């Protein structure tokens, strides 16, 4: 009998001295602080938006009733939602090509050794560092009729003035112009970093073979920037789709002339914080989220392929 109890007694203290937290793997403990923020303020709200979209929820705090798919069916027939969706897609379509191209041109120009390069680079990037409210204040002032700088420039060139903030047909171009000025510097930076990663040997070798700057651009630089361009386009599409700030601030929340430029996120904002229809706003958010995820998936794949590269 003594031989049986002995191992049991020896084993007992081992399980006793190991407290619960010690049995959690150390690596998991390292992830936990971030996981708290991630679950509480990103994952949970994402799931809750889906849940709320089936309820008749309002801001007042009383739990809304379950309304099934009625928010969803209402949304698909909501002309204002489709108008906002159209404005968002139109803005994305108009803004992405110039934002990518201007960023690329800026980087190609200033990657070369040239006089006053220390001045050109910060000039391109500076607007990106401004808060959007500053950007909006400046551009509302620039877009004024008569004494606004943009219209003054048009007049000086002998062209008619445009109603940048008042004409529904022009308003979207105002947003594109403002956004181009504000954020092209970020794409410029991405391209510049990529250009600096191209080994100088490639250019030297091509120069010795007699290739000029133009030839090197087409046969070395641009092909080597293909991956970066893919990334810049996807990041830009995502940023453009999420437009809210500039439009909200340029027209102080009115959605522009005849709601011509009101994007989806501003419609979500109006629905939830002006009409207090949280459930309906959640349905629109979730629907819009699906659209964005499909594009994000492309970004994700580019990141992944980078990971797999040797």
């Amino acid at each position, binding site marked *: 009998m003594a031989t049986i109890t002995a191992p049991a007694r020896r084993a007992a203290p081992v399980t006793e001295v190991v407290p619960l937290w010690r049995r959690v*793997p150390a*690596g*998991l*403990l*390292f*992830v936990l*602080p*971030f996981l708290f*923020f*991630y679950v*509480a303020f*990103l994952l949970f*709200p*994402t799931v*809750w*938006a889906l849940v*709320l979209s089936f309820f008749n929820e309002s*801001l007042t705090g009383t739990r809304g009733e379950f309304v099934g798919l009625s928010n969803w069916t209402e949304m698909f027939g909501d002309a204002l939602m489709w108008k906002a969706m159209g404005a968002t897609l139109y803005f994305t379509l108009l803004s992405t090509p110039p934002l990518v191209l201007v960023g690329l*041109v*800026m980087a190609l*120009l*200033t990657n*070369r050794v*040239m006089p006053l390069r220390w001045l*050109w680079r*910060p000039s*391109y990037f*500076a*607007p990106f560092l*401004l*808060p959007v*409210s*500053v950007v909006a*204040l*400046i551009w509302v*002032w*620039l877009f004024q009729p*008569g004494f606004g700088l943009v219209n003054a420039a048009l*007049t000086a060139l002998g062209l008619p003035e445009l109603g940048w903030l008042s004409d529904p047909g022009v308003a979207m171009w105002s947003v594109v112009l403002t956004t181009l*000025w504000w954020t092209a510097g970020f794409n410029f930076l*991405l391209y*510049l*970093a*990529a250009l600096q*990663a191209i080994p100088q040997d490639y250019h030297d070798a091509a120069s*010795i073979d007699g290739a*000029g*700057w*133009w030839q090197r651009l087409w046969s070395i630089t641009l092909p080597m920037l293909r991956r970066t361009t893919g*990334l810049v386009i996807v990041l830009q599409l995502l940023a453009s789709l*999420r437009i809210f700030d500039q439009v909200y601030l340029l027209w*102080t929340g009115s959605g522009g002339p005849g709601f011509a430029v009101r994007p989806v*996120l501003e419609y979500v*904002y109006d629905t939830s914080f002006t009409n207090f229809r*949280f459930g309906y706003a*959640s349905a629109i*958010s979730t629907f*819009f989220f699906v659209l*964005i*995820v499909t594009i994000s998936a492309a970004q994700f794949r580019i990141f992944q392929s980078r990971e797999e590269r040797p």
Partner: protein
Amino acid sequence: MTTIPLPRQAPRRVHRATRAWNTVGLVAAALIALLWLMPLLWAVDTAVKPEDETATIPISWIPSHFTLEAFEKVFAQSDLIVWFVNSTVVTVSVTLLVLVTASMAGYGLSRTDFRGKRLLYGVIIAGIMVPPQIVVVPLFREMLALGLVDTYWAMILPQVAVPAMVFILKKFFDGLPRELEEAARVDGASLWRIYWQIAVPLSRPALAAVGIFTFIITWNNFFWPFLAVSNPDLMTIPVGLATIQSSYGLRYAQIMASAVLGGLPLLVAYVFFQRNIIRSVAHTGLSGT
């Protein structure tokens, strides 16, 4: 002997073409810079004009006299200093919390192994696809339920959840050589000590990159702080400045003075970190290289 003239000929031809391209490039670079600086120059120019000379037809760059009156009025009447303090509190808190939590998580995911790690990592990087603007409605309800609306916490906490930063730092740790850390482990150092005394000092460039970008994004973030806070004493610079257009009416010199002052902090900071910023992009892998 025939090999000597050939290479000499080729570069000379290239040289002339290159010089032409240099001139075209310089003119183009200067032209874009001029276009990009013009709005800023016009804003500063408006801010130093007497108020009754701002809106004139035709426009004029040179005022009858130079004055800082608009700046004095803005300092005396607006909450710009309060907003600056709020922006600093929020941005510094968010940046520090991101650096600590994301680097710890990145390190744990890169260097240790535990059951369910792959699944956990998958769930975290899937979050890169969730744009924070999409969750504002339920997030606002959550803050309401927690009683945090109109507090610093409401602005700070959600901005810490940036899974992309974990991804960037995990990738960086993956690329660090393991020898030093293994030597320390043999000597009996705990995981925390190895992380804090070996991995963190070695990853300073990646941490700088994450820190710089988190700082810029948080400092300029408008949408969420604008929803989370309505008390003017708690507003950050972007949120506070959004209220200015209506409160100043048509006093353009003062509006532009506020805009200039509101944009200044990051521009000044940029002068100090501008050398790091291109390197930072390379470190985050954002450029795809």
